């Protein structure tokens, strides 16, 4: 029963993010990624004022779902001709592949599946869930956001400043409520089935650009990444540890999904002439970075700054550095708000 609910949630997520993203790309992969960025960015933009206005969780859900549904309907209307087109090329491309390449691709998929399955089937205990998952549960059950201390259940005397600007647990609560899943079940059992493949999917997109869609090389690349992750728990601090131990936590999403997205967007910016969409996506990713973790508010500008400097030297243009700076504005604004809250 829970599995059916999760499959339904996956279908809804897939359709929504595709519809959101198809306006910005003709390819399936990019459309899904762009739609994911847009969906998270919209959530972050609307939830922060609502948290400060002490609205109910229900009001947030109604508002968010209304915006998303409206955007999906608009996308369906404006993109009605090109929505299905990208899917026609998949069958064509698969038929063209040599058997050896197909075999390597299958091995790649299998290795990612095995990692995902183990995390789905078995339990890794992490005490940070006492805050993050409990926050999501509290949102669902008390119809409020950051109103009650998740350790005691008493009302907060003052806002938990470090966490209110990164309400990723509330997003999990929102997703769980779509299909009536308990958010702890969603987080611990089912989210790895979505987020671990998503992390590898972003590496597939990166590799497709670096290796010019040579599927064999992309597959080998992913196998090596998998190997490095599977043996990457030499300390509890590594991205691999966070990916395979606790991917449902916002900081794990930051390390394993948001950071690679930023790298991917800079690949697109540096490689292709049409830049407006990619700059827009980078700007929206700042909201995503802030949503998933308070670390994102600081780490996103550091990463974008370093990549912006590099891009600026590569393109011999100061404009790219300025654009990178503009993309960090959401993080700067959230940073200022956090300082005000703390002091």
């Amino acid at each position, binding site marked *: 029963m829970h599995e059916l609910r999760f499959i339904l949630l996956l279908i809804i997520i897939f359709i929504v993010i595709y519809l959101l993203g198809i306006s910005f790309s003709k390819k399936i992969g990019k459309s899904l990624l762009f739609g994911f960025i847009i969906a998270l960015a919209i959530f972050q933009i609307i939830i922060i004022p609502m948290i400060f206005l002490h609205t109910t969780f229900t009001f947030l859900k109604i508002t968010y779902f209304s915006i998303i549904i409206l955007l999906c309907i608009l996308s369906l209307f404006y993109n009605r001709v090109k929505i299905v087109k990208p899917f026609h090329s998949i069958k064509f491309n698969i038929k063209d592949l040599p058997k050896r390449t197909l075999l390597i691709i299958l091995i790649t998929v299998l290795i990612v599946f095995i990692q995902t399955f183990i995390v789905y089937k078995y339990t890794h205990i992490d005490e940070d869930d006492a805050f993050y998952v409990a926050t999501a549960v509290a949102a669902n059950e008390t119809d409020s956001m950051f109103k009650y201390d998740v350790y*005691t259940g008493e009302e907060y005397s003052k806002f938990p400043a470090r966490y209110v600007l990164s309400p990723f647990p509330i997003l999990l609560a929102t997703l769980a409520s779509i299909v009536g899943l308990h958010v702890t079940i969603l987080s611990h059992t089912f989210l790895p089935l979505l987020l671990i493949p998503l992390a590898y999917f972003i590496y597939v997109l990166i590799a497709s650009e670096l290796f010019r869609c040579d599927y064999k090389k992309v597959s080998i690349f992913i196998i090596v990444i998998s190997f490095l992750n599977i043996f990457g728990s030499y300390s509890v601090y590594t991205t691999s540890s966070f990916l395979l131990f606790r991917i449902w936590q916002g900081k794990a999403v930051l390390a394993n999904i948001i950071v690679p997205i930023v790298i991917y967007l800079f690949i697109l910016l540096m490689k292709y002439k049409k830049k407006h969409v990619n700059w827009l996506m980078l700007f929206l990713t700042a909201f995503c970075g802030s949503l998933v973790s308070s670390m994102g508010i600081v780490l996103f500008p*550091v990463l974008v700054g370093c990549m912006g400097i590099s891009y600026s030297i590569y393109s011999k243009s100061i404009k790219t550095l300025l654009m990178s700076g503009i993309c960090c504005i959401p993080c700067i604004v959230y940073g200022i708000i956090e300082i005000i809250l703390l002091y």
Partner: protein
Amino acid sequence: MREMINMVVDTFINFNGNSFYPILFVISILYIIIKKDEKFNKYLLILPSICIILIFLFPITAYVLSKILGAKVYWRILWLIPMILVIAYSLTQTFYNISNKTKKYLILLSFIFLTIFSNGFIFTSDNFNVSENIYKIPNAAIEICDIINEDCTKPKILVPKELLPYIKQYDGKIKMFYGRGAYTIDAKTVYFTMSEEIVDISIVTALSRNNECNYLVFNNNQILSDTPENYGYAFFKQLKNYIIYKLI
């Protein structure tokens, strides 16, 4: 300045443990730098990595960022270095660019050796256990919440340390005397008392009653100085590993 340098070095050592990944990373960087046809990737992967490493190491930026992030989590800067991406890219390119099969497989074996002997295999029984239920929290936490909620509409409970992280992951409405953090003097006192070899029931029950805690949960292995029934709490339920008392 010296403190900062020590912090940076300690952070780096703690993050990388005894692994060979930094060595693989340096080799991969050198590969990209040496290769003539890798201009794009020099700017995409190498230059930003060097920038981030410099920011991490430089005492002034380290000081600023450790103040902002918190010194205990300063290591998260290292997440920004695309270490596994660079290693994977270099290895894939090397594998395809080298025509000599012996060299090719020697490099591959070296990589496998260095990775496996980094002592970081994730899927061990230390890291993963068989799930007790679909929530992946102890069954006891679920059972305690369900039993108490059947009895009372607004319970406030005290549980042993091992259950603290799980109660609120199952039930968002239930109140607890304290959770992972004990904020008040009463909560801290009870937390330490509950951690003692022999639990002083007079202190636990008195402070629990003062804080309107109507259910007390003890682990069967905990040694209590007396029975809570002498202090206004009646026996309520015996579970497999826990016993629950209820305020009369």
